[in-house]
C-alpha cells in the first residue's frame, strides 16, 4: 500500500528523532570523549536553484578522522543535542576558566610582590622570612634627630 505524503513525512521525522535520540545517548555514554570535543554544525544544500536547510550534524573527530552523525533539519532536535553537549563540556571548561584565573592571580601577585620589595628597599625596609624588618631606621628624619638628642 503506498504511503501518503503525511505518512512518509511522519516516518522520516521518526527516523530523524531516532538519530537525535541516538546522538544524545552516545554523548551521555561517551561523556569523557565528548567533554573535550564535538559540536553541532549546520549545512545547506541547493536543489534546483533553491537553497535548502539548515541541516544539522553532530561533528567530532576520532582516531584522527572527522566523523559526523546526521541529525536532520529539526531545530529542536539539534538544540537538544547541542544542550547535551554543553552539559558534558561545561565541567572541563569551568575547571579551565578557574585554573586560568588562579594562574593569572598568582602571576599578578608575583609582580606585585616584586614591586613591593622594591618599594620597601627604597624606604629602608626589607622582607626577612615572612616579616618586614627595618622599622626603626625607617622613622622620619625629625624623629631621628629627636632620638639623637
Amino acid at each position, binding site marked *: 500500500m503506498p504511503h501518503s505524503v503525511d505518512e512518509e513525512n511522519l516516518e522520516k521525522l521518526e527516523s530523524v528523532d531516532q538519530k537525535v535520540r541516538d546522538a544524545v545517548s552516545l554523548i551521555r555514554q561517551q561523556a569523557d570523549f565528548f567533554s573535550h570535543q564535538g559540536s553541532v554544525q549546520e549545512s545547506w544544500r541547493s536543489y534546483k536553484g533553491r537553497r535548502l536547510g539548515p541541516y544539522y550534524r553532530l561533528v567530532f573527530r576520532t582516531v584522527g578522522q572527522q566523523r559526523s552523525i546526521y541529525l536532520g533539519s529539526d531545530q529542536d532536535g539539534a538544540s537538544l543535542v547541542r544542550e547535551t553537549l554543553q552539559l558534558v563540556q561545561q565541567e572541563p571548561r569551568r575547571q579551565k576558566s578557574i585554573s586560568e584565573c588562579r594562574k593569572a592571580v598568582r602571576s*599578578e601577585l608575583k609582580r606585585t610582590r616584586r614591586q613591593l620589595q622594591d618599594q620597601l628597599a627604597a624606604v*629602608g625596609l626589607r622582607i626577612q622570612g615572612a616579616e*618586614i624588618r627595618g622599622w626603626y631606621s625607617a622613622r622620619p628624619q625629625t624623629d631621628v634627630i629627636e632620638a639623637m638628642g
Partner: protein
Amino acid sequence: MDTKTNHAAGPAAIRPYWMPEGVDFDGLPSDLRAGILTLVNPAYEELVLRTKPGLEQSTGVTIVQLLWLEVLEMFEIGRDFLHTDSSPDSRQERDAKVSRLLRVVAAKGKASAFWIRLQDFRERHGVLPGGYDPIQREFAGAE
C-alpha cells in the same frame, strides 16, 4: 575600564575593572563571579582606590590579590565537598587544597598585619615610611 557583561552562564555580572585581561571572567561559574564581586570589589575600593600610589597601595593590591585567591580556593573546596566521593585519592586532593587555602590565608594575614603596621606608623610619625627619603638616607648611611 572594562565593563563586559556575561551572557555565557548564570545572571549577568559586570566584569571588575581591576581584573587582568587574561582572565575569562564570563567563563567563571556565576556563584564564583558573585563571590568575587561581593568580597573582592569592596576590598579593592578600600585598600587600593582610597590609597596613594606607593607602599600602602602595593600592600593593598597584595591583600586584594590574596583575597581573590582565597575566594577561588574556597570555591573549589566547597564544590569538592558536594561533588566528589570519599575515596582516598579524592580525600588526598581535598586535603592538598585545604593546605593551599591555609597558606593563602596565612599570607593574607601577614600582608594585613603589615598594612595595619603602616597605618600605625603613620599615626605615630605623621608620614608613611619613605616620607623623609633623602635626609633619612644620609642618616642611615652615617649609622
